[in-house]
């Protein structure tokens, strides 16, 4: 192990010089003149600490990076294992992220938590579509159709049969899967562009159907008063409906409308975590490998006895299921849905998230979902130029980084030797 004394000294010196100028001194007006005043003693300590940190990091850089798994690790045993370089550190990292997302609602404001919940819905949708587009390589432009099916399944069931959120969630997933299966059956023998057109049509048919089945769905007026999710039958409202108890009564705390916001956020978070977990398993399973094989070479797969229709149908159905879950959650959160929420632009945005994130890559898709949902919120001032900026961003992305933010690195099954 070499010690990098020279580069360490050099970077420490740069750190010291920069922070001394930027943080260590400041200009203050004294009377009519400007005077340079040194910083407080604790700022100086911080600068010194940062310099020391940089110095030691660079000194032991090789060692640190090896521990973190950046450099290839030379290993001799020849036993088989599914690779996940440096599992313990990765696990620690993910635990940290999950902890941060769990703590977030205690720190964030109401609107921030609301936005975060919306982000989580989009993450779930994008991860679902990622299975279809990214992993199985099927261009699906009507994904929002399954989202609508999920949302309306829960809304209608609760309206006509008084079914609660949890049952509705499962029903929505099953219903969306069923629609995915029914649609997938005839269209999956189509390829590329043709598949895209048919799925595009499907998404529109669903929306127009919902719009025109006025007796059943209320048409363009939509469905309102959809019950919110409950926490083990505890409601998040000021006054309980009959035969029910409210959350604040049960726990003997004061009512706060924040409880529900936080609860919805956590619920969405759990749904997303389950989605991530399931998809993570799927890509390591035989079906995940089969998706990749079909995407790469359908003819060769067929010659090896893989049934392409069956495998694609699997991807289509599983992807639709997640859209169904997301849809029912969306309906429950909004309390009101109408066909307007399920237009083609939604499909396009979800697809854009998948493509921007890097097709097939879960982390990339999550980052892209955050960016694509948060940025438009932050760019509210630009209002009418928003779509323009959005389009510009897409064009630039496709020119400079067509593989997406974080291109997919599939976990390979590896032979250790």
């Amino acid at each position, binding site marked *: 192990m070499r010690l990098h004394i020279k580069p360490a000294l050099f970077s420490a010196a740069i750190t010291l010089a920069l922070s001394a100028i930027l943080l260590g001194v400041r200009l203050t007006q004294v009377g009519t003149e400007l005077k340079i005043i040194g910083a407080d003693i604790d700022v100086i300590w911080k600068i010194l600490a940062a310099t020391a940190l940089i110095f030691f990091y660079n000194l032991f850089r090789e060692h640190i990076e090896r521990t973190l798994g950046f450099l290839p690790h030379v290993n001799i045993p020849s036993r088989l294992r599914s690779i996940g370089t440096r599992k313990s550190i990765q696990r620690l990292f993910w635990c940290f992220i999950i902890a941060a997302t769990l703590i977030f609602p205690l720190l964030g404001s109401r609107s921030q938590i609301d936005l975060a919940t919306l982000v989580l819905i989009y993450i779930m949708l994008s991860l679902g579509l990622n299975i279809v587009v990214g992993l199985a390589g099927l261009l699906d432009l009507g994904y929002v159709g399954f989202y609508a099916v999920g949302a309306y399944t829960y809304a209608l069931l609760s309206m006509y049969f008084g079914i609660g959120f949890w049952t509705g969630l499962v029903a929505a997933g099953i219903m969306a899967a069923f629609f995915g299966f029914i649609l997938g059956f005839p269209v999956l023998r189509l390829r590329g562009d043709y598949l895209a057109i048919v799925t595009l049509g499907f998404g529109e048919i669903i929306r127009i159907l919902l719009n025109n089945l006025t007796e059943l769905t209320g048409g363009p007026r939509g469905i309102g008063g959809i019950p919110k999710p409950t926490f083990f039958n505890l409601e998040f409202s000021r006054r309980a409906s009959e035969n029910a108890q409210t959350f604040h009564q049960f726990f003997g705390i004061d009512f706060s409308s924040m409880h529900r916001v936080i609860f919805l956020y956590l619920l969405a978070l759990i749904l997303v975590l389950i989605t991530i977990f399931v998809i993570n*398993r799927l890509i390591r399973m035989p079906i995940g490998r089969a998706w990749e094989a079909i995407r790469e070479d359908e003819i060769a797969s067929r*010659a090896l006895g893989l049934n392409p229709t069956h495998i694609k149908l699997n991807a289509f159905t599983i992807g639709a299921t997640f859209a169904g879950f997301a849809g029912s959650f969306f309906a429950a959160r909004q309390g009101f849905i109408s066909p307007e929420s399920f237009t083609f632009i939604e499909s396009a945005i979800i697809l854009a998230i998948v493509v921007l994130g890097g097709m097939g890559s879960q982390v990339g898709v999550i980052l892209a979902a955050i960016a694509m949902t948060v940025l438009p919120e932050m760019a509210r001032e630009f209002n009418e130029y928003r779509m323009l900026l959005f389009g510009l961003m897409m064009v630039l992305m496709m020119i400079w980084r067509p593989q997406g933010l974080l291109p997919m690195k599939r976990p390979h099954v590896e032979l250790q030797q």
Partner: protein
Amino acid sequence: MSSRILEVSNLTMRFGGLLAVNGVGLTIQNGQIVSMIGPNGAGKTTVFNCLTGFYKPTAGKIVFAGEEIQGLQGHKIARKGMIRTFQHVRLFKSMTVLENLLVAQHQHLNNSLLAGLFKTRAYRQAEQAALDHAMYWLKKVDLLNEANREAGTLAYGPQRRLEIARCMVTRPSLLMLDEPAAGLNPSETDHLKILINELRDEHDISVLLIEHDMKLVMDISDHIVVINQGTPLASGTPEEVRNNPAVIKAYLGEE
């Protein structure tokens, strides 16, 4: 059951006005190596495509292991144990060598979604068995050291070997090789010859071969079928075919 693994009679394939294959017959006994030869464009690959279900033959009967299979879909035929390679290597290029062999075992694996999600014991055992099986074949074709490389980064010769290994992990009873020696150097061709013989002798499979390398064909085949312009021209042992005036004429032209 007869010892015939494959029996093809009167196979005909018509593309519009073009009669690509006309009345080809073919019989492969268990454990035989049969070659199909003929000039370029004679329809050999079309015969392959008909047999393996990539084309639906216009007419004819294909009996594989006592079962009529004409008109079945490709993957169904493959699952019955008739596995083919392609004239141009068709590996899953961005998957590793090992994964190529795992994908090929798809039909033998535990494909239940729930079993995989919860990693049941049976699921893990099946995965381990698939890995062991893949290892066995990697060793056999001498690719064990390349197991973790992406298949697309292999040199041409190893890609060819991997393709054969990928067929073999599906546990076929009839292996169909479409020009396996194309693009190989003489020493690689020799190894291929040894490998094919080994497959037949030790793994109890029959082989149907399309090949232009006459030395390989003559050395290895038990039986040869010659096709010219879609029609069967001759068939017999290598010795008979070599001395058949019609074959010489088709290959070398009129004197």
